[in-house]
């Protein structure tokens, strides 16, 4: 319990520091934050209204008062976010909450399908490679996964765009968001290519990881015991061995999350998925302060929550780790 609390406290601390730094960046890199928030070329009455709506967005002055001014702005922003008011994008004429509602699902499904594609590729390849270690097919698969691992997402995207999207009429160049339950086929059409762009790389990473882990597992005593007891080879491989190797896979899924989000920004732009990432890029260009702050906070929160979750899950699943980590 103490272990869990220290982990959580630490991540909350990190979250606060990161979001504060982001806020600082939006203020420092700006001549007039209020005008940026108001959307650039607007009259004084609009500025005055924006200032009244969001009093915690303004330029801080003075060397001594700068830090307290920033901290109070941060505190008021956090207070607002927790009461459900994440702000308003005057440049896009949309509240930030609506923006999340509109664009969030696209990014969510993109990430989910990327992970699913990665796992579908990685699990069979990893298990097979470990089982038939150093066989010709394993060599080829290892080489292949290394090559894929070294392929920049941008290059994968270019290839998919050139070889698939432009030739196969089934895949639209500009996808819209369709919920999977309202029209599964349409959903697949729209999300397959961008998710594949992200998923291929993930699959390569995970298959290598799973292979290495499974090779160790297959040498351990309990596998020999299971074999000696006469459990069928398939069952040993897919149930006994895979189960104990899945832990490291889970950790990797969590560790890859921040890379996945980076990749999602590129994939969204490339295939013009109307997701959060594309919105963030535009927001940074316009210094749309509250949108930047809200999206980065959401992203960091997601990374942090998943990390804490995996950490705790790990400790729950494997008591040895709980002990070891508590000592460290």
């Amino acid at each position: 319990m103490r272990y869990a609390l220290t982990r959580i406290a630490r991540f909350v601390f990190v979250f606060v520091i990161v979001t504060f730094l982001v806020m600082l960046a939006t203020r420092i890199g700006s001549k007039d934050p209020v005008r940026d928030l108001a959307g650039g070329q607007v009259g004084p009455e609009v500025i005055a209204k924006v200032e009244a709506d969001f009093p915690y967005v303004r330029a801080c002055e003075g060397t001594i008062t700068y830090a307290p001014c920033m901290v109070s702005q941060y505190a008021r922003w956090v207070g607002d976010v927790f009461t459900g008011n994440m702000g308003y994008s005057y440049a896009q004429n949309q509240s930030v909450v609506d923006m999340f509602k509109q664009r969030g699902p696209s990014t969510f499904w993109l990430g989910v399908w990327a992970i699913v594609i990665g796992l579908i590729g990685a699990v069979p390849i990893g298990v097979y490679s470990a089982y038939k270690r150093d066989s010709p097919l394993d060599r080829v698969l290892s080489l292949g996964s290394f090559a894929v691992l070294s392929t920049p997402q941008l290059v994968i995207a270019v290839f998919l765009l050139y070889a698939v999207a432009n030739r196969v009429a089934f895949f639209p160049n500009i996808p819209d968001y369709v919920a999977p339950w309202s029209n599964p086929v349409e959903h697949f059409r729209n999300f397959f290519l961008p998710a594949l762009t992200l998923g291929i790389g993930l699959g390569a990473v995970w298959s290598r990881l799973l292979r290495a882990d499974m090779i160790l597992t297959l040498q351990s005593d309990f596998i020999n015991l299971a074999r000696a007891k006469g459990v069928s080879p398939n069952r040993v491989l897919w149930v006994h061995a895979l189960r104990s190797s899945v832990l490291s896979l889970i950790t990797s899924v969590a560790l890859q999350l921040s890379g996945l989000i980076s990749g999602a920004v590129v994939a969204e732009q490339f295939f013009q998925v109307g997701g959060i990432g594309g919105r963030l890029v535009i927001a940074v260009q316009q210094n749309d302060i509250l949108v930047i702050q809200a999206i980065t906070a959401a992203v960091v929160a997601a990374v942090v929550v998943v990390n804490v979750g995996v950490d705790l899950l790990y400790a729950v699943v494997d008591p040895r780790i709980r002990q070891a980590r508590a000592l460290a």
Partner: protein
Amino acid sequence: MTAASGAAGPTVRTPKRPNRFLTGGSVLSLTWLIGLTLLAFFADYLPFIRYATARTKSVTNYKAGPGLDFWFGSDRLGRDVFARCIYGAQISLRVAVASIIVGIVVGGALGLIAGYVKGRTDATINVLFDVLLSFPALILAVLVVGRLDVLAADVPWLTRTWSVTIVLSLLSIAPIARIVRAQTLSLSEREFVLAARSLGAGRMRILFKEILPNLVPAMVSVAFTGVAVLMVAEGGLAFLGYSVESPSSSWGKLIAENREKIDVAWWATIFPSLMLFITVLAFNVVGDRFARRFDIREAAL
């Protein structure tokens, strides 16, 4: 005391293949990297490389396909794609290599301190890493480059090339420091460090004469894989519109700006993509071979 894992003791199972550094793959990769570096370095003096910004007047069709005239074709403004790829290599390599050097120096120093001093210093530096790592790299890069653009209006030397280099350096610090810290932690508990300490060696002597030389193989490997990662990151950044200032260009920028014309002039996008892919692969192969040769774990950035 060098990290000689090749000299296997009697209990260690001898590997099937000798663990040499120079294998077919790594020789090929090194050749590619050296060749590319030379081409990029001497681009201005080589007769077969046209100036990347020069428009070619000889062709009226400014989207000429690949052929004898234009090895990689010409782009929508009639510029030689091959030349632009080579000049792009100049920028891509320079930015990535400069950043990894900063990353290794700063990250290495922080990691060394954290791993050796331990205690409160270690905890503080660790929180710093947590902050840097909890943020998706590309989003951090976009934010910082975007903000630096505004500052750049008042600072004449702060071109995009500089801000991209600054950001990539910043991104490479934390992962490198993590690796160095872990290595330092395990090295500082080894017998030779204990021996040096019992001979009366001071802290500085142990750090610089005992631990640092043993970190070199890992750092070389990290440098290669790191350059690969940074080139990819630069590509992503360029694609989002945060690349070097025109008219110079990096591979990522070439891919990004020619992408929309891919169905009429595929060569302007595909060739830079191939260059990026092969180069990243080559860096990875060399880094991986090196890591295996010296039996380094956690060398992945």
